[in-house]
């Protein structure tokens, strides 16, 4: 019942069909123009075109009032609709945002190829609202030894060298440099939620039992991380309307689970559990 509105299909379909019609008309015009050129070339007597023969009489008999209003209306709907949709869906939405990071860290290698658990590095994801970017010493747990030198003629990979430069590690002698002035790595944040929205990773990962990929996409295949989801409110709402909570295995939901069984339902969606209420995310 909700998808009709929530997906804004109504507006989208109208706009789409109008655009397709416009393209068809354009193509038709080009074709006619070409054939006219052709005719001129062969100096043929111009036979009445399809337009002149069939369409013009219709237009001539059209009511100018209705025609004007329809054209104006269609224009307003198209322009206004596009403008509004642009304002709503494009401004501030950074889906696909993939900035270059100071270190070309590849999730494809780490998470995909080596299957390192996400939580190894993003260690606070089960405890806190933020998943946190790992500190350099987490990197060093492996990269003390892993230098990918086999790919670089025995030298340390230049990307790994950046870690060493930052933390002050002598890759040759495998030891930390005393008194080294450390420099932080300034990563560029990709997933930005506005200040007014409260999002908690632990809620979704621990309680909601979501995979990282649900929101972050096939991160294990990304050489360069990009923003997979729109991170718009509508996107959150859709998910909250569809997904159920695990009421059976969490004692917190004991009462809710009982009520659910009493009502003969299979599961409770997040929305039914109050997941669409404003102060779940905005306070």
């Amino acid at each position, binding site marked *: *019942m909700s998808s009709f*509105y929530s997906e804004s299909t109504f507006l989208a379909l109208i706009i789409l069909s109008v655009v397709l019609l416009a393209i068809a008309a354009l193509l038709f015009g080009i074709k006619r123009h070409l054939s006219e050129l052709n005719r001129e070339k062969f100096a043929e007597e111009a036979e009445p075109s399809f337009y002149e023969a069939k369409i013009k009489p219709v237009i001539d008999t059209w*009511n100018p*009032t*209705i025609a*004007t*209003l329809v054209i104006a209306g269609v224009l307003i709907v198209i322009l206004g609709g596009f403008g509004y949709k642009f304002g709503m869906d494009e401004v501030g939405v950074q889906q696909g945002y993939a900035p270059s990071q100071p270190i070309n860290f590849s999730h494809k290698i780490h998470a995909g190829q080596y299957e390192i658990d996400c939580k190894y590095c993003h260690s606070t994801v089960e405890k806190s609202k933020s998943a946190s970017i790992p500190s350099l010493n987490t990197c060093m747990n492996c990269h003390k030894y892993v230098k990918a030198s086999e790919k670089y003629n025995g030298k340390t990979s230049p990307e790994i060298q950046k870690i060493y430069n930052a933390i002050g590690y002598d890759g040759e002698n495998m030891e930390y440099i005393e008194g080294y002035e450390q420099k932080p790595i300034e990563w560029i944040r990709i997933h930005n939620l506005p200040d007014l929205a409260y999002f908690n990773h632990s809620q979704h990962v621990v309680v909601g039992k979501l995979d990282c990929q649900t929101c972050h996409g096939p991160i294990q295949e990304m050489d360069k991380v990009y923003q997979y989801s729109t991170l718009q409110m509508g996107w959150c709402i859709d998910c909250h309307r569809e997904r159920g909570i695990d009421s059976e295995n969490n004692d917190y939901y004991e009462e809710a689970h009982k009520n659910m069984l009493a009502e003969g339902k299979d599961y409770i969606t997040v929305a039914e559990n109050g997941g*669409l209420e404003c102060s779940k995310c905005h306070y």
Partner: protein
Amino acid sequence: MIDKSILLDDKTFTVGIFDDSDKLLNAVGTLKKKGVKIFDCYTPFPVHHLDRALGYERTNISIGAFLCGLLGSLTGFTLAYSMNVVDWPMIIGGKPQDISVFTSFIPVIFELTILFTAFGMVILFFARTRMIHGIKEDLLSRRQTDDHMVLAIDNGEPQDMSASEIQSLLASEGAIDVDASRTSFNTSLTDEDELAKQLMTK
């Protein structure tokens, strides 16, 4: 949809010009009685009973208005119901989240009914009478929007009486001017000199 009977294109008319609505009404009555087919009359103000004298049916535009209003009511209800009850019901001031909250929708339904009726009807009217911005006007007398009333008879229409009989009848009914072949012209798109020339020839 357009009422084609009001178009003056490519026609020539015998016109009688009156400066008094009573005389015009009398003339219409007389002509009708004599079986003259009158094309239309043009007056600067609504002359009462003229349409009846010309034998016009009352317009059924009100039915269209009613349907538009009905559409407005439905739109209002659908809007409110689908948004506040179906798609995203919320707890608002402890009010129910079902159809019983309908009373709150009444003002919006009412306003949309009026809005749809008014716009629908006016659009129908414009469409019926072929009016929209940028349409050129078809005039038979420059003063037909000022103080002259024009009784127009289509020359292309077969009449029982001869043209001259009709003209003299018009003159006898008090027309201040009778013209046997007048074609439509417009003021807004025609240059003033050009217009003067056109009017001179008539």
